[in-house]
């Protein structure tokens, strides 16, 4: 069965510094999507970034970028110039190819220190 693992329950970063959140997944599929979602204290789930498995180029959205290593089944999120508003739970998610089901990791709580 497909699984998503986030091995860092909690991370801290100084404001303006860079932090990387880890995510690994297990699948036998070749065509799939990967996502990072942010959940601030308000509980609202917000999409941060998306990666299509067939694209070799790593996705980037402003201060957020991913390091997608398909062979290693790794999908890490890098946050540059961290801001206080980045403090939240971050969830990695995998979408099965050919179905509509998503698998979420257990999350990483990011603290941003002023």
């Amino acid at each position, binding site marked *: 069965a497909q699984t998503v693992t986030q091995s860092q329950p909690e991370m801290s970063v100084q404001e303006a510094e860079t932090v990387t959140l880890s995510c690994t997944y297990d699948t036998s599929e070749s065509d799939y*999507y990967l996502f990072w979602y942010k959940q601030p204290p308000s509980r*609202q*789930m917000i999409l941060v970034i998306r990666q299509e498995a067939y694209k070799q180029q790593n996705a980037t959205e402003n201060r957020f970028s991913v390091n997608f290593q398909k062979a290693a089944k790794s999908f890490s999120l890098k946050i540059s110039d961290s801001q206080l508003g980045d403090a939240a739970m971050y969830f990695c998610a995998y979408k099965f190819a050919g179905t509509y089901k998503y698998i979420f990791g257990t999350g990483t709580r990011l603290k941003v220190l002023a």
Partner: protein
Amino acid sequence: NAGVTQTPKFRILKIGQSMTLQCTQDMNHNYMYWYRQDPGMGLKLIYYSVGAGITDKGEVPNGYNVSRSTTEDFPLRLELAAPSQTSVYFCASSHRRDRGFEQYFGPGTRLTVT
């Protein structure tokens, strides 16, 4: 454009009671989902729907029922509430493949069963 709305935001149920969690989206998405999020955990898929009249079970469907009579609405029914159903419930909807299957989430319903 309200996106995905959920009602109620909070609810306390006694063991054995029933209730319906409402979910509505105004983005004309075909795909809708119900998740539960237990403390310190990721999201677990309860049920999903690929269109009006079509629903299917996710990872944790026991104790729940759904219906999808319109594109906009996807209510989740809890019958005979149990303490194990204490959780935060999220409804989500998503685009078709050409938009990367990004999910849009509602604000969540915090349910306590005592």
